[in-house]
């Protein structure tokens, strides 16, 4: 069983994240990291590969530093890594990114069949969660997003996910190959150990360009983006802030303040 995991390099959410004058997330602050939610995707893929004698390939699209994201995947135990690196990718929206990833998955599939594509539930930068479903559409594969539980039946050639939506819980199933996204409820990601970190240094990272993948640059990046950020500004600091130490009547004072603010 061959599993491709799509991962993203994002600014660390503990850092002071910013947007640039172009409205894009600033990605060169030097504190980027593997999107935390993608660690659950890598873990899910590694677990399945261990259960079903498979192999995991980590795949990312992004600037030079993005290689750190796939390196982390290799350290966790993935066998190989692919980094799509091309200046024309910059400025891609979710659909543009999905277009590049879909082309890369097809490229990998042509070399050796891919049975499953796994992603995290969302990128903690844009947080649109559009990508997993868009990727399934672009690959013309069934997509089963937001798995809190994920099982594969290799005999039947099916994948089943249990998921929790806003108002309901669902169980979905489809034939492989398929695209699945996993939530942070799915598992507890393993930490790379010393052996894994040393082994990762010897594992290959293949770098591919849009030309290698046969992707028309006009369909991705800024050129292919369907939305345009006109303005971006830090939210103004909150004013008239009140901080009190409770001396016995703080609850009463809070209620009065809420009434005064017309919130009650």
């Amino acid at each position, binding site marked *: 069983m061959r599993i491709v995991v799509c991962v993203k390099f994002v600014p660390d959410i503990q850092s002071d994240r910013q947007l640039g004058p172009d409205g894009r997330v600033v990605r060169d602050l030097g504190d980027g990291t593997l999107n935390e939610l993608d660690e659950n995707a890598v873990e899910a893929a590694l677990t399945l590969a261990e259960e079903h004698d498979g192999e995991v390939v980590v795949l990312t699209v992004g600037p030079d530093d993005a290689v750190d994201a796939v390196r982390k995947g290799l350290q966790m135990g993935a066998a190989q890594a692919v980094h799509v690196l091309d200046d024309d990718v910059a400025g891609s929206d979710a*659909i543009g990114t999905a277009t590049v990833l879909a082309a890369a998955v097809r490229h990998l599939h042509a070399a050796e069949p891919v049975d499953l594509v796994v992603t995290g539930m969302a990128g903690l930068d844009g947080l649109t969660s559009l990508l997993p479903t868009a990727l399934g559409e672009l690959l013309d594969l069934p997509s089963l997003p937001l798995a809190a539980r994920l099982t594969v039946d290799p005999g039947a050639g099916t994948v089943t996910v249990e998921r929790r939506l806003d108002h309901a819980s669902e169980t979905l199933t489809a*034939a492989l190959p398929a695209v699945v996204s996993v*939530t942070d409820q799915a598992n507890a990601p393993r930490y790379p150990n010393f052996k894994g970190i040393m082994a990762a240094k010897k594992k290959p990272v293949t770098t591919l360009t849009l030309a290698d993948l046969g992707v028309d640059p006009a369909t991705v990046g800024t050129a292919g983006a*369907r939305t345009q950020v006109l303005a*971006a500004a830090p939210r103004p600091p909150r004013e008239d802030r009140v901080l009190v130490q*409770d001396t016995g009547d703080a609850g*009463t004072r809070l209620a009065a303040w809420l009434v005064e603010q017309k919130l009650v």
Partner: protein
Amino acid sequence: MTATPVLVLLDHAADGTLRPPVRELLTLARTVADGAPVHGVWAGTADVAPALPVLAAQGVAAVHRLVADADLHLSSVVADGLGQLLDATGAGLLLLVSSFESKEVAARLAVRTGAGVVTDADGLEVADGRLVARKTVLAGTWTTRCAITTPVALVTVKANAVPAADAPAATEPTVVDAPVQVSAASRRVQLVERTERPASGRPDLGSAHVVVVGGRGTEGDFSPVEDLADALGGAVGATRVATDEGWIGHDAQIGQTGVTVAPRLYVGAGVSGAVHHRGGMQASGTIVAVNADADAPIFEIADYGIVGDLFTVLPQAAAEVRRLRAQG
């Protein structure tokens, strides 16, 4: 009149009741429609009748009821129907509530139709002939204005983005069946089981105007949190720690990976304000924090912070709110 309609996907419960954010979507749809009709789309087998009085008051001209020989809970089947309606009506804008399901529908439609999509918008306007969505990003710390540059726009709108208001003139919406040509691709995913979550009797967490949240500081006792929530007519939420400890269901988890809320009033009790939690609530209108630890990071973003014991502060506040309410 030749103007094409604005479509709104009518999110509703299994009994046919519209979910509260739909009124906000319809209000927003009218403001950008510039006189063009607003049409609803009903995806599901529930009876549309209970929703009609609200749709009439909102000035909805027509409701397209999707009819399919496949499960309309599957996002791919809904996307099939909506794609066909966008074609048939020539609509340039489709509004959806910001739910996980809606985002799946939007992602599929964006790929199939070439439409531009903005998720989690908290405002929408037409500027220089283009649709411009407003949204808060990076855990509520930045605001952006984003134009959609394609002929068809898909926008998911957060609850509490705008106050809902009825149309100046009510309508009598016509209900028309819209048979869906279900694509072969949509039949590949099977819905094995679906369990609707029972209603709690409190407002829905994702769309409530007031949310009271309990964290580690509750030590598992949510009764003061529930008491204040009920006094304020609000919903009850929780931090990741509280749900992981099993003190309350995972459905209550607020955060970037749980429910994202932007109520008028957020009250955090015993909530430290870890970055994951802030990402799910920092866009709230007014933030109140009650915590025994004066160094809790939530105080950095609180409009009103109380360093104190939630077990005395919350019941006192709830009692005072009830007393002031009773006074009128």
